[in-house]
């Protein structure tokens, strides 16, 4: 089974390597893209950047060995397109060999070499650097240098997403510029403010709190990007950011969740919304243990009560109320951008009669004020949500109204974001309104709901041997076709147990000025395809020239 899977992966890898996509391509070049961002970058050193703008800038300045294609296929090697590595092969089930493109150069002219790749892995794994990607690299034992153009990844065990883990989480770093800097000081070094990468754009300037600019690397070995410049304009207030776009001071915003702001974009003839598949899901997680993670929760420790609550929520109406026709009800612990999404995943229906019957059967009887009681305990709990999220704030109020006729007394507790996170991590809650941007790989669901995630993001402490086993089998399936039915079963089992209610996926749409052509958005990294965006010569504004 393992050998068959390995042979299969190898064949796909070789097929995949035959295809090569350049960063840019023939066609008109020129143009300036001004992105309006609601937050400044923290650092431009990829292992340490924690905020969206840092990741966006680093994504254009640095390169990976290989990158995902637009369908976010994380399993098959065919789902990757070469970047710094022109090809790769599986030497055996736990050894992945990358052959670097000899033409690849750093923006200072030095060649990109295998030693850079080994150095990069070392930096990302170093506890002194404390990269947030470090846990994603746990399965990689080491990276060695076979020769100047060959880097070898050694894995601790075989699994289908070896290539994904080897390439996706790390942007390759220039060893010759960084190896003399103490690891603990890398994030605060001059490099982190003015990075030198090998990506399609070179770093130009960063004026803190105001702007970041990158310019086309016209000598890039994959071909020059079509745009001349990409500039980030920092405007912290989302309403003002949309105002800047409408006033013509910017060209694009990644995503605009509030409906009234999307309406302002729609009413502006120069702008258009470019929708893309959602990669985020918001859910109410129940704490199955007592406060602090000890004992059993008197309400949510009972699976049937959780199921009753899930069946008592009209998610479709809730999503419609929040987003009109644009939002989406998730089918489970996934989002449409993930390849495992399927409309046939088993879900609990919206059925208030069945929910009432279930609560009655478990001994929860209506009491004073319409609230149900059992053994002197009211069916009352508190939902935490962050004050920074208006969507969750509105959704919480709707939830409260939907659960009241069921005899549930839902109390709402808005908290400042860091406090909300702290209470959730410490399991100091009844229910917490979480929102997650999901990784391209569906394996991340184990952190959210697997037993191994109880000390991590599985705040509700849900444990199920059946779900763990099904998920592990799905992760180990050698191809997507083999994995899909297993994922359907795993996510269906999770829905059956209702440790959380998966409420909504927000509408995802970037606002982009109409003069840009070739616009495609990759859900996990919205600027992944920006090297192919261009402005036709007849549509150019003064800032494009």
């Amino acid at each position, binding site marked *: 089974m393992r050998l068959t899977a390995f042979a299969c992966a190898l064949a796909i890898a070789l097929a995949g390597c035959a295809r090569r996509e350049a960063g840019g391509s023939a066609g008109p070049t020129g143009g*300036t893209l*001004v992105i*309006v961002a609601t*937050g*400044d970058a*923290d*650092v431009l050193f990829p292992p*340490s950047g*924690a*905020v*969206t703008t840092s990741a966006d800038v680093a994504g254009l300045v640095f390169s990976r060995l290989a990158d995902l294609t637009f369908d976010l296929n994380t399993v098959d090697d065919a789902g990757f397109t070469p970047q710094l590595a022109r090809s790769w092969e599986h030497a055996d089930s736990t050894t992945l060999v990358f052959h670097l493109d000899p033409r690849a150069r750093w923006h200072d002219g030095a060649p990109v070499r295998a030693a850079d790749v080994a150095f990069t892995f070392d930096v990302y794994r170093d*506890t002194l650097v*404390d990269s*947030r990607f470090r*846990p994603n690299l746990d399965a990689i034992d080491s990276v060695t240098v076979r020769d100047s153009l060959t880097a070898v990844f050694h894995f601790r065990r075989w699994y289908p997403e070896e290539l994904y883990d080897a390439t996706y989480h790390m942007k390759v770093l220039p060893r010759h510029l960084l190896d003399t800097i103490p690891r*603990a000081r890398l*994030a*605060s070094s001059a490099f*982190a*403010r003015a990075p030198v990468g090998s990506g399609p754009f070179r770093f130009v300037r960063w*004026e*803190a*709190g*105001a*702007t970041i*600019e990158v310019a086309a690397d016209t000598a890039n070995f994959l071909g020059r990007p079509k745009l001349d*410049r990409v*500039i980030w*304009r*920092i*405007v*912290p*207030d989302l*309403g*003002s*950011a949309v*105002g*800047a776009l*409408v*006033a*013509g*001071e910017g060209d694009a915003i990644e995503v605009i969740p509030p409906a009234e702001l999307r309406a302002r974009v729609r009413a502006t003839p120069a702008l258009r919304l470019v929708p893309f598949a959602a990669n985020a899901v918001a859910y109410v997680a129940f704490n199955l243990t007592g406060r602090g993670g000890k004992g059993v929760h008197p309400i949510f420790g009972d699976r049937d009560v959780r199921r009753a609550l899930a069946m008592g929520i009209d998610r479709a109406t809730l999503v419609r109320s929040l987003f009109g026709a644009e939002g989406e009800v998730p089918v489970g612990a996934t989002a449409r951008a993930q390849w495992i999404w399927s409309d046939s995943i088993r879900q609990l229906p919206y059925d208030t009669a069945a929910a009432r019957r279930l609560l009655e059967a478990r001994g929860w009887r209506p009491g004073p004020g319409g609230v149900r009681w059992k053994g002197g305990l009211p069916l009352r709990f508190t939902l935490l949500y962050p004050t*920074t999220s208006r969507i969750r704030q509105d959704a919480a109020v709707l939830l409260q109204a939907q659960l009241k006729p069921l005899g549930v007394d839902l109390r709402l507790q808005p908290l*400042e*974001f*860091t*406090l909300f*996170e*702290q209470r959730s*991590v410490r399991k100091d809650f009844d229910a917490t309104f*979480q*929102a*997650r*941007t999901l990784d391209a790989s569906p394996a991340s669901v184990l*952190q959210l709901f697997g037993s191994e995630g109880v*000390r*991590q*993001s599985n705040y509700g402490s849900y444990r199920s041997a059946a779900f763990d086993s099904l998920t592990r089998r799905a992760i180990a399936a050698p191809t997507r076709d083999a994995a899909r039915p297993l994922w359907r079963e795993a996510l269906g089992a999770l829905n059956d147990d209702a440790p959380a209610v998966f409420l909504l996926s927000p509408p995802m749409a970037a606002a982009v000025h109409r003069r840009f052509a070739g616009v495609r958005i990759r859900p996990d990294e919205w600027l992944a395809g920006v090297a192919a965006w261009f402005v036709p010569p007849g549509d150019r504004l003064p*800032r494009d020239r």
Partner: protein
Amino acid sequence: MLTYLLRRLALALATTAAVVIITFALVHLAPGEPFLAGAEGRFVPPETVARLRERFGLDRPLAVQFVRYAGNLASGDFGESFARHRPVAEVLAEALPNTLLLGGAALVLSLLLGIGLGMAQAARAGTWADAALGTVALACYSVPSFWLGLMLLLVFGEWLHWLPVTGMADVALRAPVGALHHALDVGRHLVLPALTLALVNGAAVARFHRAAMIEALDADFVRAARSRGLGEGRVLVRHALRSALAPAITLAGLSIPALLTGSVLVESVFGWPGLGRVAYEAIFARDYNVITAVAVVAGVLVALGNLLADLGVAAADPRVRRA
């Protein structure tokens, strides 16, 4: 005068020290974990949080942390920003000039607006025009500055396209541009945020100045000027205004805290890269060193503003110096 100056300086120093102690205590005792704040909803392993707390000395008792902080502060070291991975002094050095520019422009504008409006009202005291102008001033004083800013942005930026709405310069300009071109560009970007702050602050100045002018216009020397046959405009500007300026000078000093706190939201609305925005972001990020440093700088500015106002009034009125 020297004794008076030394007494005011000592008071300013004591105020700043109190600001440091109170801010440090409040920030560190407030619930919330700084190293979870920047995670944007991603899980941060507890061991990572523990390592970072140790690296920044947050695992020590609060008193030890304060002694260490105060020692560093005395040598001009504000520490390192948790979120920005940079010395706090660098962050402040970039942001402070922008806030001073915005605050200075807003202060001048608010004094011009407030004094002008106060004079106009005083000259028509008790008439419908006085009531109408007073209502306008009260409305400006009552609205939240961020709302006023958004309205100005909507009208002058989105609808009329007269003025730029965000940032302090056109980021898409291809360098290099001449100094004059740059100054004009910054000036255009300055109009809306400065006007937002000035309208709110100017309304307060107007109310004080109206009262001071009415009092001055009733004084003997003004009646004497009128009896000499001087025109009403000349009486207002040459005689009454001079006498009524002392409250405005005091108010200018007292306006500095209002302008600084106002800039926290106004800078965010207009994307102005100043100290207010740094503070706003640092509070959400629980960036202790930055929050405390901003409070120290703001405290110093406020103390300095009050000191200058006191000195101005003392210079104008000998009775104050002797008090």
